[in-house]
C-alpha cells in the first residue's frame, strides 16, 4: 500500500490527531529509535493540489507541537511499508537519530521582508543622480520618443532594488543571527523582497529572538514590512545523505 511520508519523529512518539492527505488517518511506522509519520496514499501517483500542500504543512505543525520532527519535502510517496523501512528508516537510522537530537527543542522561523515600494523608489531616486536625471528626461517625453530612456531608467531602478536588497538582507541577518543557532538565507524571489531568511532558534531563546525581530521591524518601519512565520518544523535545516 503506497504511503505518503510527512516526516520523521522519535520512535516512541504518537501520531498527531489530525487528518492526512485525502482524509486518511496518520500512522506512525516505527523502527527502533525513529519513526516515519505517514498516511496511506490514494495511489502511487498522487495528483496534488493546494489542499494537499496545506495538509502536509498542517500535519507537520501538529507533529511539532508534540515533539521533534524532521520534515520531508512535499510529495514523498513510498510504495509500501517495506520500502519505507528499508529505504528510509533502517538505512538512515543513525543519521536520523542524530538529526532528531540536533533539532530537539528548536524551531524554524522564517523572516520575509517586503519593501514599501514608494519609499524605496524615493530612496533610489535620491541616491542615484543618473536615475534622477533619466527620470527628469523621460517624464516629459511622449510614449514612443522616451522608450529607450524609460527602459534604461527601469533597468537601473531594478538593479538598484537588487543591490539594496543585498545590503538590507545582510543587515537583517546580522541583527538576528546572534539569537539563533543557524540561519539559511533564501533567494530574493522578486524585486520587492528585501529579505528572505530562515532561522533555527532554540525554543528557550524564542522570546529573545522575537524581541530582536521587533527591533528590526521598528528600525525599518516605513521601509520594509517584516513578516514572521513560525514556529515551524526545521524544513531548511534538515539534510540527509543521498540514498544509495
Amino acid at each position, binding site marked *: 500500500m503506497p504511503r505518503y511520508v510527512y516526516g520523521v519523529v522519535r520512535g516512541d512518539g504518537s501520531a498527531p490527531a489530525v487528518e492526512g492527505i485525502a482524509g486518511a488517518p496518520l500512522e506512525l511506522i516505527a523502527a527502533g529509535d525513529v519513526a516515519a509519520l505517514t498516511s496511506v496514499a490514494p495511489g502511487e501517483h498522487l495528483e496534488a493540489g493546494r489542499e494537499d500542500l496545506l495538509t502536509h504543512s498542517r500535519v507537520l505543525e501538529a507533529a511539532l507541537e508534540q515533539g521533534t520532527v524532521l520534515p520531508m519535502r512535499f510529495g514523498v510517496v513510498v510504495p509500501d511499508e517495506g520500502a519505507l523501512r528499508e529505504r528510509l528508516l533502517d538505512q538512515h537510522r543513525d543519521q536520523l537519530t542524530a538529526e532528531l537530537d540536533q533539532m530537539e527543542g528548536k524551531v524554524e522561523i522564517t523572516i520575509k521582508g517586503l519593501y514599501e515600494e514608494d519609499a524605496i523608489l524615493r530612496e533610489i531616486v535620491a541616491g542615484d543622480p543618473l536615475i534622477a536625471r533619466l527620470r527628469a528626461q523621460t517624464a516629459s517625453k511622449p510614449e514612443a520618443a522616451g522608450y529607450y530612456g524609460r527602459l534604461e531608467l527601469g533597468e537601473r531602478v531594478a538593479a538598484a532594488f537588487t543591490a539594496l536588497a543585498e545590503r538590507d538582507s545582510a543587515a537583517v541577518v546580522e541583527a538576528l543571527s546572534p539569537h539563533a543557532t543557524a540561519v539559511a538565507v533564501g533567494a530574493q524571489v*522578486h524585486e520587492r523582497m528585501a529579505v528572505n531568511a*530562515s532561522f533555527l532558534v532554540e525554543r528557550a531563546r524564542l522570546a529573545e529572538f522575537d524581541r530582536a525581530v521587533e527591533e528590526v521591524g521598528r528600525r525599518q518601519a516605513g521601509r520594509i514590512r517584516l513578516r514572521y512565520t513560525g514556529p515551524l518544523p526545521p524544513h531548511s535545516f534538515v539534510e540527509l545523505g543521498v540514498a544509495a
Partner: protein
Amino acid sequence: MATAVQQQPYGGGGGYVARSSSSGLYDVLELILDKGLVIDVFVRVSLIGIEILTIDARIVIASVDTYLRFAEAVNRLDLMGTETQGLPELMEGITEGGASSKTKGVLQGAKEALFGDDDEDEDDKEDEDEGSGTTRRRSSSSTTTKTKRRRRSEASGSGSGSSRGRSSRS
C-alpha cells in the same frame, strides 16, 4: 501604505512585524516544496493548478515590460521638496488612489507568475488591506507571462545550491 510610518500593531506583541502562526500557504510554500528531507526514489507527485517557476538567484531575467513599469512607477512619484521633507511628510504626499495602486500592481504580477494561484498570496492581501484599500490588480495581460525568473532547483534535499548560504551550526 500612507500609514506605513505610523505603523499600528498587527495584533499582539506590540508591533511592527506581521505574524502568522497558523501558516498560510504562501508562507510555507517555498519551504515544503524546496526544503526538507528527500529520499531519492519515490517522489511521485505532480502538482496541479500551481505553476512553479524556477529562479536562478544570480541571473534574474526581467522583461522589458518590467523595466518599463519601473520607469513608469518612478516617473509617477511626487518628488516635490524631497530634500527638505522627512519621511512622514513624504508619506502624506503619496496619493491614495492612482499612483500607489498602479505601482503596487506592477510588481504583484511577478509574484503571481511565481506562485500562480493568487489565493496563496495572503501576504499581498495583508499588504493591500493595510494600505489604501486598493484591490490588488491581477496583471493578466503582460507581466505574468513575460516576467521570467529562473532558479536552480535543488537537486537533493541537502540544500547545497549556491543560492542559499548557511552559517555554521553549533
